[in-house]
Every structure is written in structure tokens, then in C-alpha cells.
């Protein structure tokens, strides 16, 4: 079992959970919120060594943290684009049955 803690400013909880989900084939993860941050206990289920697993887990958490960050910065565009894409262009298009 290896342990790693992520301070709040480093990675949000949702990023940690997603990383744990992604690496579920390699380890089971116990996730706990503590004052120091999100504490993770990694129990390897495959052949990955302790240090290797921690390195991989850290890198995965940081990548998911980046994804959360980008998603937050682009959510307005995403919502707007999807809304417009699903709405008919003009009344004529709606009548044609054409999006």
C-alpha cells in the first residue's frame, strides 16, 4: 500500500476520483478528505510497483485536474454550441425536417 495526498490547490476532489476510476484496473484507491487535502491509499492489484504506481497516479490526477480546468474555461462555448446545434437554423429548416 502506498499513500499520496493532494492539497486542494493542486487538485480538486473530482480530478482525484476520476484518476482513481481510470486506474481501477491497476489499483484500488481509498480516498479520504483531510485538512491537508485529499488523501489516497493505493492498493496495487496488478504488477505495478509502488513508486511506479504513485508516479502514474500523480500524473493521472494532474491531467484530470487540467481537464477540469479546461472544461470550466470552455463550458460557456460548449453549452452555447450544443444549444445552437440542436436548435433548427430557421423555420424553413425545421419544416424541411433538416437540422
Amino acid at each position, binding site marked *: 500500500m502506498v499513500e499520496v495526498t493532494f492539497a486542494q490547490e493542486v487538485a480538486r476532489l473530482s480530478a482525484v476520483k476520476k484518476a482513481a476510476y*481510470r486506474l481501477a484496473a491497476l489499483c484500488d484507491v481509498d480516498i479520504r478528505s483531510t485538512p491537508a487535502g485529499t488523501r489516497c491509499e493505493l492498493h496495487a492489484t496488478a504488477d505495478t510497483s509502488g513508486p511506479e504506481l504513485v508516479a502514474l497516479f500523480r500524473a493521472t490526477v494532474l491531467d484530470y485536474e487540467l481537464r477540469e480546468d479546461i472544461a470550466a474555461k*470552455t463550458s460557456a462555448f460548449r453549452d452555447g454550441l450544443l444549444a445552437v446545434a440542436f436548435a433548427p437554423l430557421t423555420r424553413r429548416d425545421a419544416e424541411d425536417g433538416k*437540422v
Partner: protein
Amino acid sequence: MARFKPLEEFFAQELHEYEFLPFKFHRLKTGRVFVSNIVGEWLVLDTQTFELFTSSSLTPASAAYADLRARHFLLDRDSGVAVDLLTVKLRQRLQHLRSVFGLAIFVVTLRCEHACPYCQVSRQSDDHAAFDMSPAYADAALKLLFASPAREFKIEFQGGEPLLNFGLIQHIVLEAKRLAEVSGKSVSFVITSNLALLTDDVLAFCAEHDILLSTSLDGPAELHNKNRPRRGNNSHQLATDGIRRVQNRLGADGVAALMTTTKASLDRVVDIIDEYRSQDLHEIFLRPLSPYGFAVKTKWFKAYDQLEWLRFYREGLRYIIDLNRRGERFIELYASTILGKMLTSRPGNYVDMMNPAGIGSRVIVFNYDGDIYASDEARMLAEMGDKTFRLGNVGADSLAEVVLSDSLLDAVEGTVLESAPMCSDCAFQHYCGADPVYHHATQGDPIGHKAFSGFCDRQMGIFEELIELMEADPEAARILSSWVRQ
């Protein structure tokens, strides 16, 4: 004559201030970073460029800036049409949601004279009544199909061995053509057959009605016959004779061949491809191992199989690319399906790789017993005892009633990739698909935990392989992009 302004005057000011447009990323095994946007356009960046880009520090001095801008990963003040274009592209991507029942499978009989161990559906029997589709069921199915909003579809005859019920095939073809004429819709036909029973009458009928044939060719004779036992052990001979006869009568494109991949195939990929070439076939679908019918006991077994399969696939793909390099046009269809999604705005029509899942909407299966299934795999699952994806029966009032059942809608809506764990963040989402039947069969849940999914492992392996090839080898990249021609 007025003064001509230099290029610099047309750059907007403060260009380092750009906004992100929605995108996802994936770190490739090579260390570089694959980025894709909301409409499936993509780029591969080195890590440094990726860091600069994501920390809002990239400038036009970087060669990647222009590409990121043109492919709609970033938006700066120089141009505002990115949003208009993304909207148009998104709409195009969603167009396919409108087409229904493009593929209608009619299982005209379960009877078959082969005894392939991997087949779950066939019956060695002469009991026509028990295992043949009746004309009444066929007519009811056609009626439902033509009453639906589908405007053009392909009817595919499956079995067992469909030619054992050739009379019904003839009836369905003639009736479908009549209905098509009356309703202004268009219909085409394919018969999947082992070709052992391909008589001249069958060929004549196919020629008359533009019916295509699709057959199994698993590889060279000893491999094929081992997979597909038959009294006389001559399945391969009959198949290849049949292929030749169809090609002579209906033309080179009159017959397509499909392979089934078994453990025995896994180290024979070059032989299998060469067998296709010697039969004058110029494309192959290197199919995955099917989970249906394999007793999957442990996760390890699954993982091992997928890794072996990926090795098989890579070897086959690279061999095929080398053939192309030497001037021979030969296409691998799994790759060309994915490449179509990567390189063009076309949505693609491979049912098993669609998002939302195509089961029950893009494909519909009318079984010999009048039951309706969401896909061919759904039917196979039912023959193994699991009727989760049985939708209804031809006695229903309409196909809408049949496909709008809660069980199907839950499976389709629930598995939409945008909301599936892991898939929602995946940079390959646009090129992948939901396969609820596979995940239900292997994990007991249509969404599945993708970290344990053989489907996901396989897809990711292929994506990485294609990207690696395109990045490392410009000639391979040209060959691969030529495969997306319509």
C-alpha cells in the same frame, strides 16, 4: 494606385490573448499529446507546445499556433467565424441521428449445414417449421419497415445459412421492391452465406435484382476449415469457388468477405491477408474476438486476449500498408471506418461504433420466430439465453412502439459517451462508439467500467496505432487517408 499593406498589419493586436475552444487531450505512448475538439478535429503536439498552449502562453511564433487556430482549438481576435463554423460542423455531425433502420436484418432460417464452434445461432436440423421464418412473419416485418420513417435501407439476409430458405429470400426481395416502388423509398439487398449452396438459379436471381453477397473467409484452407467444420471438410473450397463464381457473374464488387477471428487466427494474420489477395479480394475487416460464446472466466483472460489481438491487428495493418506502398490497393476496413471519423465530417455508418449507440435505431433484426432484436449481437445474446435486447415482435402495431421501449432507450441514453465515466473526458470520444450489448454481455452493465473493458482497450490500441503511423510515416499517412474515399 493605393498603397499595399504588409502582412503584419493584418495580425490583430495582443495575439497572445486567446480563448480556449472546447477540447480534450490524451498523452500518447510516444510522449506527445493528442488533442481533439468538439467536432473531432485533432492535432498532435509535443509536450512543450502543449504546456504553453494550456497555460495560455502560446504565441504565433510557434508553428502550432496557426494550426490550433484553423482547427478551432483557440479563438483570438483576428477572426470570429470559428463559432459559426463549429456550429455548422456540429450540426453535420448530428445529422446521422435522423436516419433510421438503415440496415434491416432478416434471419430467414436458423438451419445450417456447417457446425462452426464459435457460432451461437445455428441449428443442425431439417425442421423447417421450427427454424425457418414464415412468409407471414416476413410480410409483417416488411410492413413495419416500410411504414417507418426510413427512406432507404439495406436488407441483409442472415441465418443459419440463408440459402437454405432461398424461396423466402425471393419472396422478400420481390415484395420489398414492390413496396419500395409504391412508397418511393429505396432498398438494396445483401445475402450473407457460406456459398456452399450457391446454385446458378441463386446467382441468376442475384444478378437480376442487384443483390450482393457476403461470405466468410477466415483464412487459408486449413485455418478456415478448422474454424468452420462441415461434412467433407471442404468449406474453404466451396467458399472460394463461390467467390469466384459470384465475381464472374456479378462483377468484382459482387461479393464481400468477412473473417471471424479465433485464437487460431492470431498468429496467421499475414497468411489470412494473402488468402484474401489470392481470391482477388481487395479489402479485409480484421475483426475483433467476439465475446459472445466465449466463456470468459477472469479479467486476466480478457486482457490477455485483447493484447494478443492488438498484436495481430498491428501486424496485419502494417503488412497491408506495405502492400499499398508497393502499389497494390488493399484496404483494412476497421481502420478506414475510424479514419473516416478522424479525417472527414462524415458520421460513418458502422453500427457498432456509434454514439449514441446504433442498436435498435440504425439497425433492426427480424428473427426467424418473429421476434425483433436491437442488433445481430443482441440476437446472439438471446440464443445464449439472455433476452435483454429483445425489443418485441412483428405482431406489433409499429416499429416506433417496438424501439421506443424503456429497456432499449435506457441502454441507448445511458451509454451516450458524453456522460459515460472515462468516455466523457476521452480525446477519442468522437471516433469511438457505445456498445451496450458488448458491455452488458461481458460486465452485466451496458455502460461498463471502461478501465476493465476489452472494447475500450481494443479501441484505444487502434487509435494509438493509427496516430503513431500517421505521425511517424508520411507515406503511411497518405495511404491511410486515401482509404476514406467514398
